[in-house]
């Protein structure tokens, strides 16, 4: 088949970033699997306060109590006993780029990230394995009182703040995977933005998984104090391995009155990774939270960023783009809960399914009694590129208040013959024409991403699209 030849020629049948460095560990749990002993070991190794150990052990109980979800994607092949729950690669955090070990630098270089963009990307929290090993933070932010460090450091240096908010937005017993993360979390970012401070350049954390059968359980907590603004960017990519690995993060955002948080993610895990993430934000009076969520990689992603609109005038926005290629299932979407008057929300979801890929939009829109004059809109568009591709839409809409306006719309289509005909009559090949239509389809989301991410997104999709006309 000509299609297969093209794919092989491009090397697309193998995961693009499927290289890995020799594994060199500073600390690794002595065995696979999870029990109170392992949890205590992780906590002790990190010199954590007693309350955090307790938090972890309670979470472990919830993890064991909760059944594996039977909705969403197929989790039957996921074996919790075949995973190392903690690996720490290097002893110290790198103070500057020069201090970062060379094999880790190599990995970053192959990914083509920070070196070239270092000047633009002001703060780089690069997570290698389970721990943040490199951090740089612009001086003026420090002066302004902005805290941007790995979560473990946050717990050491800002214990009071962490204790006040940690696990309050996503309690450990929220769901099975949040419970697992709460028990074994390691790494992730802690961000605090003081009142009135606005950070113009996005904070970035780039991280990757690098050990076979290794789970990565990072934990991020962002607190934007009154009237502040922060844009946090998380992107990840992982090497290919033959057995399944698990990524299960928890991200909590708190937007205090008048604050604004934008959180952008592009997820490009290798195609054997389970990506099961819980992300939730609360927005108080007149605060705004925006999730920009791109899902390209992984074997199965289950991720539904949520915004709880707790204060009058709060606004939540979720932009979700998913690309499901052969064998992939992107079960993504968003949750908005209106719990205060005059709140507004918008969910925009765009998904593309190709080959045997399956993309699912799963969403909840809830308006509580008393959240009067709330406005909400959900828009889902799905593009199907192959006969065997699949798309689903499962929007849950629950309204308890009369003075509301909620709208949900979804459309499913294939690339239109007339669109192709038009483009091809202008001299484009069919392949180019399809790629152009697809890029146009995701454009509303791509334009919300920082430039380098938008380019990466477009390039990745273009690469995936090549050879798609057989």
């Amino acid at each position, binding site marked *: 088949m000509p299609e297969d030849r093209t794919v092989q020629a491009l090397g697309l049948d193998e995961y693009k970033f499927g290289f890995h460095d020799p594994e060199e560990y500073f600390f690794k749990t002595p065995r696979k699997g999870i029990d109170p002993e392992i949890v205590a070991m992780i906590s002790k190794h990190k010199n954590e306060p007693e309350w955090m150990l307790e938090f972890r052990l309670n979470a472990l109980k919830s993890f064991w109590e909760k059944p594996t979800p039977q909705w969403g994607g197929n989790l039957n092949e996921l074996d919790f006993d075949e995973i190392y729950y903690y690996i720490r690669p290097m002893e110290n955090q790198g103070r500057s780029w020069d201090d970062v070990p060379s094999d880790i630098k190599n990995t970053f270089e192959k990914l083509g990230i920070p070196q070239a963009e270092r000047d633009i990307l002001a703060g780089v929290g690069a997570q290698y394995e389970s721990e943040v090993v490199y951090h740089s933070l612009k001086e003026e932010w420090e002066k302004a009182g902005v805290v941007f460090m790995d979560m473990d450091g946050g717990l050491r240096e800002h214990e009071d703040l962490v204790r006040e908010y940690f696990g309050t937005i996503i309690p450990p017993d929220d769901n099975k995977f949040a419970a697992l993360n709460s028990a074994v979390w390691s790494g992730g970012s802690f961000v605090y933005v003081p009142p009135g401070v606005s950070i113009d350049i996005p904070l970035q954390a780039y991280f990757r998984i690098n050990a076979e059968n290794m789970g990565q359980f990072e934990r991020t907590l962002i607190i934007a104090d009154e009237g502040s603004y922060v844009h946090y960017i998380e992107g990840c990519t992982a090497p290919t391995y033959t057995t399944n690995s698990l990524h299960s993060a928890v991200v909590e955002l708190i937007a205090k009155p008048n604050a604004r948080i934008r959180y952008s993610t592009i997820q490009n895990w290798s195609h054997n990774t389970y990506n099961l993430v819980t992300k939730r934000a609360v927005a108080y009076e007149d605060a705004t939270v925006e999730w920009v969520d791109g899902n390209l990689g992984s074997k199965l992603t289950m991720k539904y960023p949520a915004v709880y609109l707790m204060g009058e005038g709060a606004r939540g926005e979720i932009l979700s783009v998913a690309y499901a290629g052969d064998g992939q299932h992107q079960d993504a979407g968003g949750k908005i809960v209106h719990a205060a008057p005059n709140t507004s929300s918008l969910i925009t979801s765009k998904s593309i399914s190709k080959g045997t890929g399956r993309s699912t939009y799963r969403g909840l829109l809830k308006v509580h009694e008393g959240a009067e004059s709330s406005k909400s809109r959900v828009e889902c568009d799905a593009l199907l590129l192959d006969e065997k591709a*699949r798309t689903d*839409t*499962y*929007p849950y809409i*629950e309204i308890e208040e009369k003075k509301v*306006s909620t709208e*949900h719309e979804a459309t499913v289509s294939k690339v239109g013959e007339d669109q192709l005909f038009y483009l091809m009559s202008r001299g484009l090949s069919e392949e180019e024409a399809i790629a152009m239509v697809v890029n146009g389809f995701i454009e509303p989301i791509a334009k919300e991403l920082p430039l380098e991410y938008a380019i990466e997104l477009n390039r990745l999709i273009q690469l995936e699209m090549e050879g798609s006309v057989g």
Partner: protein
Amino acid sequence: MQKNGVPEILKNKGVSAEVVETLSKFKSEPAWLTEKRLEAWRLFEKIPMPTLRDEAWRYTDISDVSIDDFIPYVPSPDVSSEKELPEAVQTLIEEGEENSALIVQHNSETAYSRVDEKLSHKGVVFTDLHTALAEHGDLVRKKLFGLVPIDYDKFAALNAAAFSGGSLLYVPRGVEVEVPIQSYHWLDVAGSIMPRTLVVVEEGASVTYIDEYASANSEELAFSNGAVELYVGQGAHLRYVSLQNWERNVLHFNTIRSSTEKDSTINSLVVALGSQLSRTNVEAGLVADGSDSEMLGPYFADSSQVVDHHTLQDHISPNAHWDLLYRGALRDESQTVFSGLIRVEPGAQKTDAYQTNRNIILGTDDAFAVSLPNLEIMADDVKCSHGSTTGQVDETDLFYLMSRGIPRKEAEKLVVFGFFGEVTGRIPLRGLKEKLDQAIEGKIGLGFEERVA
């Protein structure tokens, strides 16, 4: 039909294997059906009662519902003319759609039936299921449980095990029945009623069939659990109406499933107005090329009513067209659930499917509207879309009407009427439409004005 000497065991509350067997024997049923009923009963016992943990029941709490609270079989007197029917039933018939054939199921039994001679001459069969078993045994055996199988869910299993009364409509090839066929279900005891409707429309035939449910007001709880199977042959046309207008003492469960052959058309209209809890599954599989389907569902919930609709538009074959429109109003402390699914199976190319659910909440903060318009698409050359909105009566609409001198209360009524008009305007049955309009007006008039701010 009514017989003397109802076995004692059928007069007691609750269902058991013995009850099922006794009922089957009492109705002189063939052995295959007795076996089927018993098999269904075993399934019913095996399947756990749905709870809020089950996805299909996550908003509707039926933990209080128990079949042990109801008498499984309540006979009714046979009558020889419409005039002997209960007065309320006569009124229903008078106010209903003009009909060419009529069946009245009074409690668990068919009390009266009439078919225009012209129809009989053309070979149209319309009779209660037990008579049909005796006279058209092969047809019934072939089709019964074909679309609502005994293992469909717990309620379908119960219906299969304990049904009585019910009806068969058979329209032979090429016969066009112009005047609708009507079936009334009347309940005036605190027992259970388990009707079963079987409609077989052969190639090129056409017919309109109306199932209407009504009851006498009572303090005591009653239970209705129906199953409806609709077979639409090649090029045939069926319009099916289910008008549920029980009094508030009734718990209503119903599953309506249809299959369509090549180039056929099915229009369904499922109306929910009455009962305290109404759960209806409306499912259709478009199994052959070129079929066309419309699903309409107006519902209006007041006081503490719970109205729950689950719909499935299953596209199995290519080139099918489907349009679904469910519109509901809520007031007081009521709750409505619309859960719909468009499924396009692999290979069902050139599918054209729409699904729209709209809810208006009238003057209350205590109502709860749930809308779940789902899509599962497994073919790429399709056009599918769905929409869902929930809101209150539009202020600009009201302002416009009031600026023309219409008082606010009147204006609100008009807007609600307009809201339902999008559905009722698509029903070509005048008597039914009037009935609906009256019911909607009645519901608005329940004191809604006072509650509007």
